[in-house]
């Protein structure tokens, strides 16, 4: 039986944190989740992410079919390929979830986000803010003598870029909707 004895202190690894079988590259995916619009469904989705330790980069939800009582949740999440697969499988397990689409792998898709930015400034800063807004095709939706509220839509990186430019010009406040996304082409996700 001596051959079966193990050396003192020979165990140096934790079974929980060694996962060499799976790639550790982090990927960002956009998921479209079609759900019954019933009380608590968003809590189920969010609870899944917090309970299992997944990331939510952005999340939008609204009813999309009033007669069919269905809502569409668009989630942008980051994780290893194995975690992304788990997220999709776990979402699919939720009873009021009808369908889970990974728009990142199911072909090209369009992603858009809307943001409102309040910029305070006078003189040259104010002129520069307006000029940049024009370049970014942002609309002025509110104005006072020393402030603007701009409305801008686009992919998240465009909004990031616009916000970065506005910051030195007096960016006060920003509100973003999170990403809404659809696959390109004639075919829907359903």
């Amino acid at each position: 039986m001596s051959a079966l004895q193990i050396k003192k202190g020979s165990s140096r690894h934790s079974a929980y944190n060694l996962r060499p079988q799976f790639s550790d590259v982090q990927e960002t995916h956009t998921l479209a989740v079609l759900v019954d619009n019933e009380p608590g469904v968003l809590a189920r989705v969010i609870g899944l992410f917090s309970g299992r330790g997944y990331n939510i980069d952005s999340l939008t939800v609204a009813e999309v079919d009033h007669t069919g009582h269905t809502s569409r949740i668009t989630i942008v999440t980051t994780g290893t390929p194995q975690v992304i697969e788990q997220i999709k499988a776990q979402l699919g397990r939720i009873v009021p979830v009808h369908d889970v689409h990974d728009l990142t792998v199911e072909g090209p898709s369009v992603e858009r986000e809307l943001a409102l930015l309040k910029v305070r400034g006078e003189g040259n800063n104010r002129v520069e803010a307006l000029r940049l807004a024009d370049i970014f095709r942002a609309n002025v939706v509110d104005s006072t003598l020393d402030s603007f509220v701009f409305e801008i839509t686009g992919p998240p990186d465009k909004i990031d870029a616009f916000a970065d430019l506005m910051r030195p010009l007096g960016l006060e406040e920003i509100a973003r909707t999170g990403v809404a996304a659809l696959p390109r082409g004639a075919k829907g996700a359903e």
Partner: protein
Amino acid sequence: MSRQMTGAKMVVQSLRDQGVDVVFGYPGGAVLPIYDEIFQQNEIRHILVRHEQAAVHAAEGYARATGKPGVVLVTSGPGATNAVTGITDALMDSIPVVVLTGQVPTFMIGNDAFQEADTVGITRPCTKHNWLVKDTANLSGTLHEAFHVATSGRPGPVLVDIPKDVQFASADYTPPAQAKTSHYQPRVKGDTAAITELVAALEEAERPIFYTGGGVINSGTAASQLLRELVDATGVPVTSTLMGLGAYPASGRNWLGMLGMHGLYEANMAMHDCDLMINIGARFDDRITGRVDAFSPGSKKAHIDVDPSSINKVISTDIPIVGDVAHVLEDLLKIWKSRGRKTNRAGLEKWWAQIGDWRKIDCLAYTDGGRTIKPQHAMARLEALTKDRADRYICTDVGQHQMWAAQYLGFEAPHQWMTSGGLGTMGYGFPASLGVQMAHPDALVINVAGEASWLMNMQEMGTAVQFMLPVKQFILNNERLGMVRQWQELLHGERYSHSWSEALPDFVKLAEAFGAKGIQCSDPADLDDAIMEMIRHDGPVVFDCLVEKHENCFPMIPSGEPHNKMLLGENAETGDAIGTKGAVLV
């Protein structure tokens, strides 16, 4: 044809239409209308437990012994929160349970009313699905949907929260046949191409192994039958998780015994060295895999599971097959037979010879206790004296005794072994045994317990005596929290922090105080007679079996170690066997 009735009546009618014959519960203010309806009928029996947690465990025991969903009825607030441990237990072990909770009236919800709790909020992460019914018109449909969800796909607990005004109000009753079909229809048929790929791998494998789990039991008796046919026809060795014991008979010639942290040496070594692992309805739990980066390094892995999220969750799988075990095994057998029933005979012969060598280690051997009863000896005698009874059902609590029961008792049929596997709930066994006895009134139902676990739900003595449920509580009493003590010995420098109980009750007197029979045994020479006395007594028995206090449970894979690094018996080196990182794992 629709019928108007109150919500409370609807609950009873729905249960009847769903084929429910017993409900485990505890009344309270928010469920009084339903209890009033239960009072006025005789088709559904209600078993009054002594704590809501026990109601859920009893329903789990009933469900596991019958394959039908167990039903629980409790009140709002504390009734619901007390049930949470049981519900979580059912979720972890995939047991179909339907929990009905009362709720304060809809117009009081959110007011911090008396006995109000956000029951659907609290139970959202521990149920498969739950509903708050705010309109009596939706009640019957929701109840039928609840049974459908609890029993379809991977089974699990569901909860329906019913406010008191919804129970009083009237609406049309919808019978199950007219209920809206649910969009929740999990896939049961496996992909034929993947099954064919698995058959091809099986035909060529030199060292294949079936690793089966609770999914085989959950899939129904047909699944166990098909597994037996497949194993015996192919001659491939089979091991099982704690949850899957009984799917393949312990007396079967290809049986290797349980695998995992306290599994048999031959089973774990075979898992480590195999070249084809076929996981049937198991989920690569951490008690099974040990260290994942060294888990069965040289094998191709196939995984049959009805839940897609189980696949690739822990271990990356080469041949994933999403489907119900019975359906997949049926197709697998069909394809294997149609391709000429091929196996790699030469390879299998060598494989069995290797397994024979591992078996010679005799990993369950233990040294004789002399005048003291060794817990292993108690299990071996219990097995010898009861194994011929086809109607023997075994429940356990959680700890060393649970592992000894799994190691030394042999299970010949599915649905005869109820133990808390995933959640590891101390106090599970006694109420579960009540549920099993309700399902099989004439059967021999034994709960193998530890004294600490048993005390966690000992109030159920009242239930056992009131409903004349002749359950046998076989307590391996070492006056220690044995598994905690074992880990403290191996990992924490023998500093036994709070792992023993002083002031234990006299279990014989305790049984007698409830009007039951108590037996104490401390001498190996008296053990057989005492066990027979327990079996022959027509009524609940508490058997206080005083055993060796410092016995450790072996074999054991230390945390953070792979399968081929098992600790064996008393002669094995155990000092500092588990490294500091392994100690984190519990």
